[in-house]
């Protein structure tokens, strides 16, 4: 058993990066991510980590430096949040298109305007189609373990796709909790040193991310899609292998919490899943058959596993912590599309909650579950998008 620490999510990620033996870290400060890179700087300065820290002058440069450092064959990490992520957006596309396995931590924070620093998922949703894998965590412990798993999957020679580990701002990033530190030997067994077949080498010159005309560009994009699709299985495998070596795993790409016989199932991502599990247990104790499907891997979207989890439900609720303006929550659209593809069609309700740091309480979730149970029983319900905790509905 590893050392038991009392850490916040940011520090947990930094420990994960250290254990993964990242070689180049380039990052720019932004609340609420800053403590990740502060801690990594400290690790480097006191000799616990053998890495180069690039003191960049912007997130755009951070992502560019990560991209090229990865081209040169180094294991690379960066962290950002919100506006910083949006500033990186251009180079995120370069990184994924050039198939460089950069790992990034994103402390999910809402987007301005109105000017804000608090939690929601608008930032990562806005970069959803940048070709990055995206994985969401619910605790500091999961943040640490998942960061290490990220390197494993991203660096797989068949995948070579960058990945973003998303931890919720403040609720995870700034909350101290118990984190068990894995042994370095276990992580070394799990994660071999990074070897990139087409790394920059003066003896075998290559042009990375060469220009491609319309006659081939589409094929390159198709290759990229094939690779990211393959990653779904690799995530399950990596999680299972991590479980064997370290003793903790997280149910693969979708965590099925009490869904087997559930009438009402709620689909969540991130820290909300943690509170929801508490609510599920309370309702189960009162005899209500409810369950929780926690989506860990958001891109590539785990369609098969999700439908397997949701197939028995009589009513499904999806909580989105972001908007897709002009339509419904983006996660809701994805879940519904997955269900449609598999001919599963129970009533489904979209709840928009916790935007810009609005607290989502156990009581809120309890109400949602009771509404879903009603809908499941009657087969009827309000199909409109519902805002949870909105102060004035008009």
């Amino acid at each position, binding site marked *: 058993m590893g050392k038991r620490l009392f850490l916040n999510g940011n520090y947990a990620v930094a420990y994960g990066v250290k254990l993964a033996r990242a070689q180049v870290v380039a990052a720019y400060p932004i609340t609420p991510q800053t403590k990740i890179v502060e801690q990594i700087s400290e690790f480097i300065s006191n000799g616990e980590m053998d890495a180069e820290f690039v003191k960049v002058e912007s997130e755009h440069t951070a992502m560019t430096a990560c991209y090229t450092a990865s081209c040169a064959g180094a294991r690379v990490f960066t962290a950002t949040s919100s506006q910083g992520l949006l500033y990186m957006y251009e180079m995120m596309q370069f990184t994924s298109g*050039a198939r460089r396995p950069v790992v990034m931590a994103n402390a999910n924070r809402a987007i301005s305007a109105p000017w804000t620093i608090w939690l929601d998922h608008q930032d990562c949703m806005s970069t959803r189609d940048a070709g990055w894998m995206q994985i969401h965590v619910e605790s500091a412990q999961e943040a640490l373990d998942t960061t290490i798993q990220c390197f494993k999957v991203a660096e797989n020679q068949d995948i070579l796709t960058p990945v973003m580990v998303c931890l919720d701002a403040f609720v995870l990033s700034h909350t101290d909790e118990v984190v068990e530190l894995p042994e370095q030997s276990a992580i070394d067994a799990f994660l071999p040193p990074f070897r990139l077949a*087409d790394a920059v080498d003066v003896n075998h010159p290559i*042009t990375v*991310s060469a220009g491609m005309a319309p006659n*081939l560009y589409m094929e390159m994009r198709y290759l990229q899609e094939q690779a990211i699709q393959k990653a779904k299985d690799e995530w399950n495998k990596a999680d299972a292998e991590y479980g064997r070596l370290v003793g903790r795993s997280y149910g693969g790409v979708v965590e099925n919490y009490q869904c087997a016989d559930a009438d009402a199932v709620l689909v969540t991502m991130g820290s909300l899943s943690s509170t929801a599990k508490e609510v599920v247990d309370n309702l189960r104790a009162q005899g209500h058959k409810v369950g929780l499907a926690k989506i860990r891997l958001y891109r590539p979207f785990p369609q098969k596993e999700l439908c397997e989890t949701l197939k028995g439900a009589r009513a499904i609720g999806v909580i989105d912590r972001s908007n897709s303006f002009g339509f419904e929550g983006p996660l809701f659209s994805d879940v519904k599309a997955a269900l449609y593809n598999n001919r599963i069609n129970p009533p489904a309700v979209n709840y928009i909650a916790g935007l810009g740091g609005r607290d989502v309480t156990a009581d809120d979730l309890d109400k949602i579950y009771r509404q879903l149970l009603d809908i499941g029983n009657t087969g009827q319900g309000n199909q409109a998008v519902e805002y949870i905790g909105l102060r004035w509905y008009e």
Partner: protein
Amino acid sequence: MGFIPNPSKLGDLPAGAAFEGGHPTTQTGNWRVFQPVLDKEKCKNCLLCWVFCPEGMIKRQEKCVEISYDFCKGCGICANECPSKAIAMAKEG
């Protein structure tokens, strides 16, 4: 991996469009309208044409330079730079 200028299947394309360098596959020589012609007698081997040629198509030799036409686009810089007027631009064909 080797360089495949005319890919015929997905497997011929490398991940991330990372291609081996040093493969100029288009013979830009056929872009020429005028071609440089060297008068070896006049050449003083000062190498100005050699250093100015954008395509690196002029070869350094013992006594005087030699023009290769594979990638020469006929820009005429060599003729313009030559202090001893040893290179003349002649119409192709």
